[in-house]
């Protein structure tokens, strides 16, 4: 278990009687895509929130680049280099696509308390933003209002904003949802190369994408990880088949 960039150790979180996370441990290594799958209600969102810093675990710790970040909030974790995309798009809807990307670049640069110079004329910020948009293929939509984008395009923009942050880890919550077949293919291709830039913890429902992309897969059921392994290991794991993959058809 070398160079784990992100590590979760024995996290538990309960809401009343419901154990949403039950002694979960997970690592994300440099250069890999680690997919987190599980049926609805398995506790994926709760786990992501604890990693991103929205929720504090009852027990256990979160480590980022060898530092214990359990007590840090979302902002601090983002500044350390945790780039997150949301399951339900979380963008500034009144802004243009470019403005959203510039916001990311601004966050990366950090000097927010500047009151006079126009931010949309800052060449460095624009360059960073445009580059990120080009990477996800949104450059021609730069001046669209974000609320006018399709769901798929919003996902792409989520990824683009995360890119402007040049994070050390990507935390992606269902980036494929709502993308058409072509869009999914394109994004998959992109993520495939992105893992060289920073490892990705990927929560995804699209099983084809997961099995095609992931270096490792963890399966979360009822708040516990029942298995972690390569695509083949998971596919052939009887416990996983019983608990999860068997139900996939019914979903």
């Amino acid at each position, binding site marked *: 278990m070398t160079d784990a960039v992100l590590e979760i150790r024995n996290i538990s979180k309960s809401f009343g009687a419901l154990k949403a996370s039950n002694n979960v441990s997970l690592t994300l290594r440099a250069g890999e895509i680690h997919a987190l799958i599980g049926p609805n209600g398995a506790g994926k969102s709760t786990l992501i929130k604890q990693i991103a810093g929205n929720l504090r675990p009852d027990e256990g710790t979160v480590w980022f680049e060898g530092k214990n970040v359990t007590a840090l909030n979302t*902002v601090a974790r983002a500044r350390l280099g945790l780039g997150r995309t949301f399951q339900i798009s979380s963008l500034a809807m009144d802004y243009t696509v470019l*403005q*959203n990307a510039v916001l990311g670049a601004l966050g990366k640069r950090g000097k927010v308390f500047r009151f006079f110079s126009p931010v949309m004329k800052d060449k460095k910020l624009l360059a960073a933003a445009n580059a990120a948009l080009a990477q996800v293929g949104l450059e021609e939509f730069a001046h669209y209002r974000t609320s006018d984008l399709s769901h798929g395009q919003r996902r792409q923009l989520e990824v683009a904003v995360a890119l*402007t942050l040049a994070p050390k880890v990507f935390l992606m919550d269902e980036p494929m949802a709502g993308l058409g077949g072509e869009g999914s293919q394109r994004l998959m291709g992109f993520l495939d190369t992105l893992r060289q830039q920073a490892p990705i913890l990927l929560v995804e429902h699209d099983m084809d994408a997961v099995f095609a992309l992931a270096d490792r897969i963890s399966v979360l059921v009822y708040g516990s990880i029942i298995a972690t392994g390569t695509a083949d290991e998971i596919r052939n794991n009887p416990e996983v088949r019983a608990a999860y993959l068997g139900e996939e058809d019914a979903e």
Partner: protein
Amino acid sequence: MQREQLINATTLLALLAVPLWAWYVDEPFTITLATKVAIFALAGVGLNLALGLGGLVSFGHAAFFGIGGYAMGILASHAQTYTPLASWPFLLEGTKSMPVIWLVAMVMSGLAALAVGALSLRTTGVYFIMITLAFGQMFFYFAISWPAYGGEDGLSIYVRNGFPGLNTLDPIQFFMLCYVLLAVVLFFFARLAKSPFGMALNAARQNDERVQTVGITPYRLRLVAFVISGAVTGLAGALFADLNRFVSPTMLSWQTSGEIMVFIILGGVGRLYGPVIGAGLFIMLEHFLGGLSEFWHVYLGVLLLLVVLFARGGLIGLLAGKEVAHD
């Protein structure tokens, strides 16, 4: 966008032209009304930074307006009676110089906004509205029951404070002073809205989580915006007190907070010039409806209700059409 800029320029010009015309035909009261519009507009522009850009529905801005007013009243009353404000730990004299009074008004109301904001911004939404309202009431009751500076009776200043090189008692000169201040603040706020700070603040209004995710703390953005907003509203309060040569706790009442908010909604929320048009409209309504009926507040209420329900962009919205992305 083009059309809104045209409306803005027309508004600013009209606010200048009317009192100049009144000066020409010797109608000093019209100049006084225009001065009131400029000052209320300034208060509204101040609040609109928090409310329009920051999404912070503060129902306690009258407190900052009143603190600005009292900064003027207290400094000028001490200067008037030649008594020092404090003799310990160092001698603090009153003053009748507007620039000094403005500075003190902005600092004091900014500090009050810092204290109120630091507590209130821990909450959001409805909580924030109710808490700012309650803190506003706290300042109001304090002003009424603190006997040193007139309490409920307020403070009267017999001669308007001075500005180097101007005769501030001349209505048109005092108007120009207020007008220039309004224009300067409008210019800075126009820049601020497009600055990194303004962009992040506006983004935090639209989506708090997004701003956190890119590593910016919305709380700090909002607190700074709230302080600037309070300071500008405080500046307006100092001018308003000078216009009337009088300050009283009425300036801090919750109705005043409501009225400042009404300027914004009449003109158009989130539009830089919204409060300017709104204040103008409000003063005209007060002037003409007030002449028609003792119960003009009923008409004002109905009009306001109609604007909220059916004309959400306010007057600028009606004239300029649908809002487009700020690019």
